């Protein structure tokens, strides 16, 4: 089934497929960001493929690579019991088209990516932080965010350090 998906995609969107990767029987396809909506819609609406279940969206930070981030979409076809991964590569300030119009599940998943990686989605109805408080600085799942950094909460005497006598 995965081969069939791949050949269909290649037929339809030959220019937008940047890379194809097989590993341990799993298929992941790197696609052009601008064609994301078209390709996902095709996967969903094609009668034969019917990838109707958007199982997961997650980000991966490849610090030092350009473009820096991967956004990984995990689609599942309940009909064919098949699962594929689509990836788009984006840089820090690029805006990714949101899938919320086609999949309700994308809403919270994209919010989590915004929260954890600071990537923005276009046409998202409610792009706020989801797990961290709104006042949080930085995006923890980025590789340059230190693991043990802790903010000083009480700073009332920040400007007046206590005098050490003796």
């Amino acid at each position, binding site marked *: 089934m995965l081969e069939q998906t791949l050949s269909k995609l290649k037929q339809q969107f030959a220019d937008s497929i940047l890379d194809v990767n097989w*590993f*341990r029987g*799993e298929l*992941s396809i790197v696609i052009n960001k601008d064609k994301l909506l078209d390709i996902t819609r095709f996967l969903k609406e094609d009668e034969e493929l019917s990838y*109707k*279940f*958007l*199982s*997961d969206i*997650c980000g*991966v*930070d490849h610090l030092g690579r350009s473009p820096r981030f991967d956004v*990984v979409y*995990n689609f599942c076809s*309940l009909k064919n*019991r098949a*699962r594929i*991964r689509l990836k788009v590569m984006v840089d820090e300030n690029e805006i990714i088209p949101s899938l919320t119009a086609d*999949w*309700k*599940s994308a*809403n*919270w*998943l994209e919010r*989590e990516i915004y929260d*954890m990686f600071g990537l923005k989605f276009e046409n998202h109805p409610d792009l706020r*932080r*989801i*797990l*961290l*408080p709104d006042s949080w600085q930085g995006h*923890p*799942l980025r590789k340059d*965010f230190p*693991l043990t950094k802790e903010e000083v909460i009480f700073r009332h005497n920040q400007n007046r350090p206590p005098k050490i006598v003796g």
Partner: protein
Amino acid sequence: MGDKARETMFLNMGPQHPATHGVLKILLELDGETVVKAIPDIGFLHTGIEKTMESKTYSQVIPLTDRMDYVAPLSNNLGFCLAVEKLLEIEAPFKAQYLRVLLTELTRVANHLVFVGTHAHDIGAISMVLYGFREREMLLDLFDFVSGQRMMTSYFRIGGVAKDIPEGFEEKVKNILKVMPKRIRDYENILSKNRIWLNRTVGIGKISAEEAIGYGLSGPILRATGVKWDLRKSVPYSSYDKFDFDIPIGKNGDIYDRYLVRMEEMKQSLKIVKQALEGMPQGDYIAKAPEVVFPPKEEVKGNMENLIFQFKLAVEGFSPPKGEVYQAIESPKGELGYYIVSDGSPKPYRVRVRPPCFLNLSALNKMAEGHMIADVVAIIGSIDIVLGEIDR
């Protein structure tokens, strides 16, 4: 909705409301007692587990997985171990696979007992919570007996399980198999035809199959809408294809159907446990893969080489090949997936947990819309959330 001048009221439910099963806050927009909108606010229990996993070796990640869905720790272990095994291309021996199936199915029963207990308690059947937790204790005793821990078991290891089955295990499981069906029948006698229970659950929190798929719902909630999707059957892992069991499905997708599906699932799980116990293969409990698997403790004490090896494996870990895998299992809550990106170093470059409760909860607004405020409590209970997993 006709009268636009009508004012709505906002009400914070939680984060310390007893019916929110942890620390969940819901912002309710109310028109009288009718819910116009229910906006969940999550993250109070966020501990950065995915970030922490990046700083641990693969073996050290296992205890972290326990602490996500703390009602079903063994299922979390299983998902992660299977994902790493896929990455390494090793397979657990049959005995370990059967033992894993047996214990995760008992975990499912334990999870559903907590579900039915707390859910019924929320709605008003207070005695159910006592019954549910009484029987769960029996299962936790077994986990304690096998792994040495009641809840945070960390019993599954990459390549198999941590220890061989202790003596007397069979009798304990047999006892559970003897007691549980009667008890499940008792619960059904209390609830299934109870007038109050029916009034509170039938037709409440409905969601259609198409909407459920759109929201990414999985597990009993999806099956209650009539979709026959269970990863144990659809994409079998860990020898599930060798067991004979049915997937219960519902029809209406309301709270009552979710309850029925879970009750039936418990019976099916016990059926699987029985088969696993009877067909338990002989042999090793952990794979023979010395680069990955810790040597047995007895050999470490008497053999210098093994001692060095144990030390190296504990301190440095092992380096799987570069690549990425996704492994999903059917946890009691739904599709629990692990997406691991390896860069060839002893620590995972990125571990993404696909949390079933997170997506299940995201449909709360859809389910609660137009119902009464008291139904929100029932709906949350029927989703069966664990905030530890949602917030990670």
